Protein backbone atom coordinates (compact mmCIF):
# COMPACT_ATOMS: atom_id res chain seq x y z
CA UNK A 1 0.00 0.00 0.00
CA UNK A 2 2.10 2.89 -1.24
CA UNK A 3 -0.52 5.39 -2.38
CA UNK A 4 -2.66 7.50 -0.12
CA UNK A 5 -6.33 6.56 -0.13
CA UNK A 6 -8.48 9.65 0.06
CA UNK A 7 -12.15 9.44 1.06
CA UNK A 8 -14.67 12.26 1.26
CA UNK A 9 -18.09 12.36 2.84
CA UNK A 10 -20.99 14.77 3.20
CA UNK A 11 -22.44 14.28 6.66
CA UNK A 12 -26.12 15.15 6.72
CA UNK A 13 -27.20 17.35 9.64
CA UNK A 14 -30.03 16.42 11.93
CA UNK A 15 -30.30 13.00 10.32
CA UNK A 16 -29.82 10.82 13.32
CA UNK A 17 -30.59 7.62 11.45
CA UNK A 18 -27.76 8.00 8.94
CA UNK A 19 -25.24 9.37 11.46
CA UNK A 20 -22.23 7.07 11.49
CA UNK A 21 -22.33 6.02 7.84
CA UNK A 22 -19.14 7.93 6.96
CA UNK A 23 -17.30 6.34 9.86
CA UNK A 24 -18.63 2.96 8.88
CA UNK A 25 -17.21 3.31 5.37
CA UNK A 26 -13.83 4.30 6.75
CA UNK A 27 -13.92 1.35 9.13
CA UNK A 28 -14.80 -1.10 6.33
CA UNK A 29 -12.05 0.34 4.10
CA UNK A 30 -9.42 -0.07 6.83
CA UNK A 31 -10.62 -3.57 7.63
CA UNK A 32 -10.34 -4.53 3.94
CA UNK A 33 -6.79 -3.15 3.87
CA UNK A 34 -5.89 -5.50 6.71
CA UNK A 35 -5.16 -2.77 9.27
CA UNK A 36 -4.96 -4.28 12.81
CA UNK A 37 -8.35 -4.50 14.57
CA UNK A 38 -7.38 -2.37 17.55
CA UNK A 39 -6.27 0.49 15.29
CA UNK A 40 -9.43 0.25 13.18
CA UNK A 41 -11.50 0.39 16.34
CA UNK A 42 -9.63 3.40 17.74
CA UNK A 43 -10.22 5.59 14.68
CA UNK A 44 -13.77 4.25 14.27
CA UNK A 45 -14.73 5.28 17.81
CA UNK A 46 -13.05 8.69 17.56
CA UNK A 47 -14.49 9.50 14.12
CA UNK A 48 -17.93 8.24 15.10
CA UNK A 49 -18.03 10.53 18.16
CA UNK A 50 -16.92 13.46 15.99
CA UNK A 51 -19.46 12.57 13.30
CA UNK A 52 -22.26 12.36 15.88
CA UNK A 53 -21.19 15.76 17.26
CA UNK A 54 -21.41 17.23 13.78
CA UNK A 55 -24.91 15.81 13.31
CA UNK A 56 -26.35 16.82 16.68
CA UNK A 57 -24.63 20.17 17.24
CA UNK A 58 -23.70 21.57 13.84
CA UNK A 59 -26.26 20.58 11.18
CA UNK A 60 -23.74 18.31 9.47
CA UNK A 61 -20.63 19.11 7.46
CA UNK A 62 -17.80 17.48 5.55
CA UNK A 63 -15.45 14.68 6.53
CA UNK A 64 -12.29 13.51 4.80
CA UNK A 65 -10.08 10.55 5.55
CA UNK A 66 -6.53 10.03 4.25
CA UNK A 67 -5.16 6.56 4.72
CA UNK A 68 -1.38 6.13 4.57
CA UNK A 69 0.73 3.00 5.03
CA UNK A 70 1.36 3.81 8.68
CA UNK A 71 -1.49 6.09 9.80
CA UNK A 72 -4.91 7.55 9.10
CA UNK A 73 -5.79 11.22 9.27
CA UNK A 74 -9.41 12.32 9.50
CA UNK A 75 -10.68 15.89 9.27
CA UNK A 76 -14.26 16.85 10.09
CA UNK A 77 -15.35 20.38 9.33
CA UNK A 78 -18.69 22.05 9.95
CA UNK A 79 -20.18 25.51 9.74
CA UNK A 80 -22.26 25.15 12.86
CA UNK A 81 -22.49 27.30 15.92
CA UNK A 82 -18.99 26.55 17.19
CA UNK A 83 -17.77 25.77 20.70
CA UNK A 84 -17.56 28.63 23.19
CA UNK A 85 -15.08 27.08 25.58
CA UNK A 86 -13.08 24.12 24.26
CA UNK A 87 -11.35 23.52 27.59
CA UNK A 88 -14.74 23.10 29.25
CA UNK A 89 -16.01 20.93 26.40
CA UNK A 90 -13.04 18.60 26.90
CA UNK A 91 -14.03 17.88 30.51
CA UNK A 92 -15.61 14.45 30.92
CA UNK A 93 -19.31 14.80 31.67
CA UNK A 94 -19.66 18.38 30.47
CA UNK A 95 -22.35 18.71 27.84
CA UNK A 96 -24.61 21.25 26.17
CA UNK A 97 -26.80 18.61 24.55
CA UNK A 98 -30.56 18.91 24.95
CA UNK A 99 -32.72 16.38 26.76
CA UNK A 100 -33.86 15.18 23.32
CA UNK A 101 -30.29 14.31 22.37
CA UNK A 102 -29.72 12.57 25.70
CA UNK A 103 -32.84 10.56 25.06
CA UNK A 104 -31.15 9.30 21.90
CA UNK A 105 -28.17 8.03 23.92
CA UNK A 106 -25.70 10.86 23.32
CA UNK A 107 -24.76 14.05 25.10
CA UNK A 108 -23.25 12.39 28.17
CA UNK A 109 -20.27 14.70 27.86
CA UNK A 110 -17.91 11.88 26.93
CA UNK A 111 -17.57 12.58 23.20
CA UNK A 112 -14.47 14.76 23.15
CA UNK A 113 -12.77 12.89 26.04
CA UNK A 114 -13.33 9.65 24.13
CA UNK A 115 -11.83 11.13 20.98
CA UNK A 116 -8.75 12.24 22.91
CA UNK A 117 -8.43 8.86 24.58
CA UNK A 118 -8.41 6.85 21.36
CA UNK A 119 -6.33 9.01 19.01
CA UNK A 120 -2.58 9.62 18.73
CA UNK A 121 -3.27 13.24 17.83
CA UNK A 122 -6.43 15.30 18.26
CA UNK A 123 -6.72 18.94 17.31
CA UNK A 124 -9.83 21.07 17.51
CA UNK A 125 -10.34 24.59 16.24
CA UNK A 126 -13.61 26.37 16.74
CA UNK A 127 -15.04 29.82 16.31
CA UNK A 128 -18.42 30.75 17.72
CA UNK A 129 -20.88 31.39 14.89
CA UNK A 130 -18.43 30.11 12.23
CA UNK A 131 -17.94 26.41 12.89
CA UNK A 132 -15.60 23.74 14.11
CA UNK A 133 -12.74 21.78 12.56
CA UNK A 134 -11.50 18.57 14.11
CA UNK A 135 -8.33 16.70 13.14
CA UNK A 136 -7.75 13.12 14.21
CA UNK A 137 -4.73 10.89 13.66
CA UNK A 138 -4.27 7.26 14.55
CA UNK A 139 -0.96 5.52 13.90
CA UNK A 140 -1.06 1.89 12.83
CA UNK A 141 0.73 -0.55 15.10
Amino acid at each position, binding site marked *: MSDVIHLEFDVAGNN*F*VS*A*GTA*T*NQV*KDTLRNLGIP*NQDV*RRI*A*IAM*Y*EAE*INMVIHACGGKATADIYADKIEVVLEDHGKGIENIELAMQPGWSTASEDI*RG*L*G*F*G*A*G*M*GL*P*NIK*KYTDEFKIESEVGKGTKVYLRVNFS
Partner: protein
Amino acid sequence: MKIKDIVRILNAEILFADEKMLETEVNSACASDMMSDVLAFVKDQAVLITGLCNPQVVRTAVMMDMVCIVLVRGKQPDEIMLKLASEKRIAMLSSPLRMFGACGLLYEAGLKPEG
Protein backbone atom coordinates in the same frame (compact mmCIF):
# COMPACT_ATOMS: atom_id res chain seq x y z
CA MET B 1 -20.57 -18.01 27.77
CA LYS B 2 -22.17 -18.28 24.33
CA ILE B 3 -24.86 -16.12 22.80
CA LYS B 4 -27.27 -19.06 23.03
CA ASP B 5 -26.65 -19.09 26.82
CA ILE B 6 -27.61 -15.40 27.00
CA VAL B 7 -30.83 -16.22 25.15
CA ARG B 8 -31.63 -18.90 27.74
CA ILE B 9 -30.58 -16.97 30.84
CA LEU B 10 -32.44 -13.80 29.87
CA ASN B 11 -35.44 -15.63 28.42
CA ALA B 12 -34.76 -13.57 25.32
CA GLU B 13 -36.47 -13.43 21.97
CA ILE B 14 -34.06 -13.87 19.05
CA LEU B 15 -34.71 -11.05 16.60
CA PHE B 16 -31.64 -11.69 14.50
CA ALA B 17 -29.08 -14.49 14.82
CA ASP B 18 -28.34 -17.65 12.89
CA GLU B 19 -27.15 -20.96 14.35
CA LYS B 20 -23.48 -20.07 13.93
CA MET B 21 -23.89 -16.75 15.71
CA LEU B 22 -25.66 -18.43 18.63
CA GLU B 23 -22.50 -20.48 19.14
CA THR B 24 -20.32 -17.34 19.30
CA GLU B 25 -18.39 -16.94 22.54
CA VAL B 26 -19.03 -13.75 24.55
CA ASN B 27 -16.19 -12.64 26.84
CA SER B 28 -17.49 -9.49 28.50
CA ALA B 29 -20.44 -7.15 28.73
CA CYS B 30 -21.24 -3.46 28.84
CA ALA B 31 -24.60 -2.13 30.04
CA SER B 32 -25.63 1.48 29.42
CA ASP B 33 -28.21 3.69 27.79
CA MET B 34 -25.55 6.30 26.99
CA MET B 35 -23.66 5.34 23.86
CA SER B 36 -20.61 7.44 24.70
CA ASP B 37 -20.20 5.40 27.87
CA VAL B 38 -20.25 2.29 25.72
CA LEU B 39 -17.70 3.86 23.36
CA ALA B 40 -15.34 4.34 26.30
CA PHE B 41 -15.33 0.57 26.83
CA VAL B 42 -13.11 -1.65 24.70
CA LYS B 43 -13.22 -5.40 25.04
CA ASP B 44 -13.28 -8.17 22.49
CA GLN B 45 -16.34 -10.31 21.82
CA ALA B 46 -18.57 -8.23 24.04
CA VAL B 47 -22.32 -8.00 24.47
CA LEU B 48 -24.15 -4.67 24.75
CA ILE B 49 -27.09 -4.56 27.16
CA THR B 50 -29.21 -1.45 26.74
CA GLY B 51 -32.63 0.05 27.22
CA LEU B 52 -32.03 2.41 24.32
CA CYS B 53 -33.65 1.39 21.08
CA ASN B 54 -32.52 3.32 17.99
CA PRO B 55 -30.15 2.79 15.02
CA GLN B 56 -27.21 4.34 16.88
CA VAL B 57 -27.27 1.42 19.30
CA VAL B 58 -26.36 -0.85 16.40
CA ARG B 59 -23.82 1.61 14.98
CA THR B 60 -22.15 1.85 18.38
CA ALA B 61 -21.97 -1.94 18.59
CA VAL B 62 -20.48 -2.02 15.08
CA MET B 63 -17.76 0.51 15.98
CA MET B 64 -16.89 -1.57 19.04
CA ASP B 65 -16.90 -4.89 17.14
CA MET B 66 -19.51 -6.18 19.58
CA VAL B 67 -21.12 -9.51 18.78
CA CYS B 68 -24.53 -9.22 20.45
CA ILE B 69 -27.07 -6.57 21.51
CA VAL B 70 -29.66 -7.27 24.21
CA LEU B 71 -32.58 -4.85 24.37
CA VAL B 72 -34.11 -4.96 27.84
CA ARG B 73 -37.73 -4.46 28.93
CA GLY B 74 -38.95 -6.21 25.81
CA LYS B 75 -38.06 -3.36 23.49
CA GLN B 76 -38.39 -4.12 19.80
CA PRO B 77 -35.98 -2.84 17.14
CA ASP B 78 -37.30 -1.18 14.01
CA GLU B 79 -36.48 -2.37 10.49
CA ILE B 80 -33.51 -0.04 10.15
CA MET B 81 -31.92 -1.49 13.28
CA LEU B 82 -32.54 -5.07 12.17
CA LYS B 83 -31.14 -4.39 8.70
CA LEU B 84 -27.98 -2.85 10.17
CA ALA B 85 -27.57 -5.73 12.60
CA SER B 86 -27.96 -8.35 9.88
CA GLU B 87 -25.56 -6.54 7.53
CA LYS B 88 -22.94 -6.44 10.25
CA ARG B 89 -23.85 -9.85 11.67
CA ILE B 90 -24.53 -8.70 15.20
CA ALA B 91 -27.00 -10.86 17.13
CA MET B 92 -30.09 -8.92 18.24
CA LEU B 93 -32.03 -10.13 21.26
CA SER B 94 -34.91 -8.72 23.26
CA SER B 95 -35.39 -9.68 26.91
CA PRO B 96 -38.46 -8.97 29.04
CA LEU B 97 -36.14 -8.33 32.02
CA ARG B 98 -35.15 -4.92 33.25
CA MET B 99 -31.53 -3.79 32.98
CA PHE B 100 -30.53 -4.55 36.57
CA GLY B 101 -32.05 -8.01 36.54
CA ALA B 102 -30.56 -8.87 33.17
CA CYS B 103 -27.08 -7.77 34.28
CA GLY B 104 -27.40 -9.62 37.59
CA LEU B 105 -28.32 -12.91 35.96
CA LEU B 106 -25.50 -12.72 33.41
CA TYR B 107 -22.97 -11.80 36.11
CA GLU B 108 -24.15 -14.65 38.29
CA ALA B 109 -23.80 -17.01 35.34
CA GLY B 110 -20.12 -16.03 35.02
CA LEU B 111 -20.05 -13.12 32.58
CA LYS B 112 -17.74 -10.46 33.98
CA PRO B 113 -17.12 -6.87 32.87
CA GLU B 114 -13.42 -7.45 32.35
CA GLY B 115 -13.91 -10.67 30.39
